[in-house]
């Protein structure tokens, strides 16, 4: 396997993430949301194809790049304004969200450089490994966060299935969506949600750039 095809590859954990996407896709199809399911399935398939070498590794562009820094923040704020004022489930919102998604792929997909080993990922290649105690702390942190996220997913899934017995059951077992949607449907709620969502995306992008994605 070429060096290019090694980029972004760690062994089992990568397949765990791909499995998460595939599992989420099946849940989305199961709840009658084929577009959502297709999105998760496409990314699971793309990542799987990249893992087995069917897709070349994409590295960060060295030449002309997309908006960065203040220009990117301004662009994000422009998108936020459109999402706030556009009709709730109209074509404008959907178009902007699709463009945001496609644009995000260009920032999140590229991998800075190939990991030296499965346990020493890309941007850590030049660093000395952290001491065992620090590794243990990091592992503990990751395990605790993963446990909480899995618990949220299980609680949400339980509410989803238990709420399928009619209106009373749905009222007794609300999903996160049914709790949040009334808030987002209000003008101020939509404003808050869009701003938090956009700022969250920018924060994720910043972390991704530090972690070895597009610079």
């Amino acid at each position, binding site marked *: 396997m070429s060096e290019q095809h090694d980029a972004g590859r760690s062994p089992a954990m990568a*397949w765990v993430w791909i499995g998460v996407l595939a599992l989420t896709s099946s849940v989305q199809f199961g709840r009658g949301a084929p577009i959502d399911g297709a999105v998760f399935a496409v990314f699971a398939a793309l990542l799987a194809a990249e893992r087995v070498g069917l897709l070349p590794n994409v590295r960060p562009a060295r030449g002309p790049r997309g908006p960065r820094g203040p220009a990117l923040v301004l662009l994000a704020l422009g998108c936020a304004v459109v999402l706030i004022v556009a009709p709730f489930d109209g074509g404008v*919102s959907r178009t902007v969200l699709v463009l945001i998604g496609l644009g995000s792929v260009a920032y999140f997909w590229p991998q800075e450089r190939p990991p030296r080993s499965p346990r020493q990922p890309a941007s850590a290649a030049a660093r000395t490994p952290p001491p065992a105690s620090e590794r243990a702390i990091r592992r503990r942190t990751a395990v605790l966060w993963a446990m909480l996220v899995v618990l949220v997913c299980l609680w949400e899934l339980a509410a989803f299935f238990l709420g399928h017995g009619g209106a009373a059951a749905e009222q007794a077992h609300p999903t996160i969506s049914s709790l949040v949607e009334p808030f987002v449907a209000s003008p101020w709620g939509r404003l808050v949600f869009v701003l938090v969502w956009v700022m969250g995306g920018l924060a994720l992008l910043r972390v991704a750039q530090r972690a070895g994605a597009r610079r």
Partner: protein
Amino acid sequence: MHALTVTGYLVLVLAMALLAAAPHVRPGLVVSFGSMLEEVMRERPARVTIMVFWWWLGWHFLTGA
């Protein structure tokens, strides 16, 4: 049952808030959320998966999908 279900969500949100605050209260117990996220996102599959979930939240709540 409604209150129980909502309480479950609130307990989990509270647990996340406590875990996020833990590095500031007791350094050495866990690392910060940002630090952990940066380490996780060094790998493309994790980075792209997290990005897809973030995007989907916007799609789900802002389009009524």
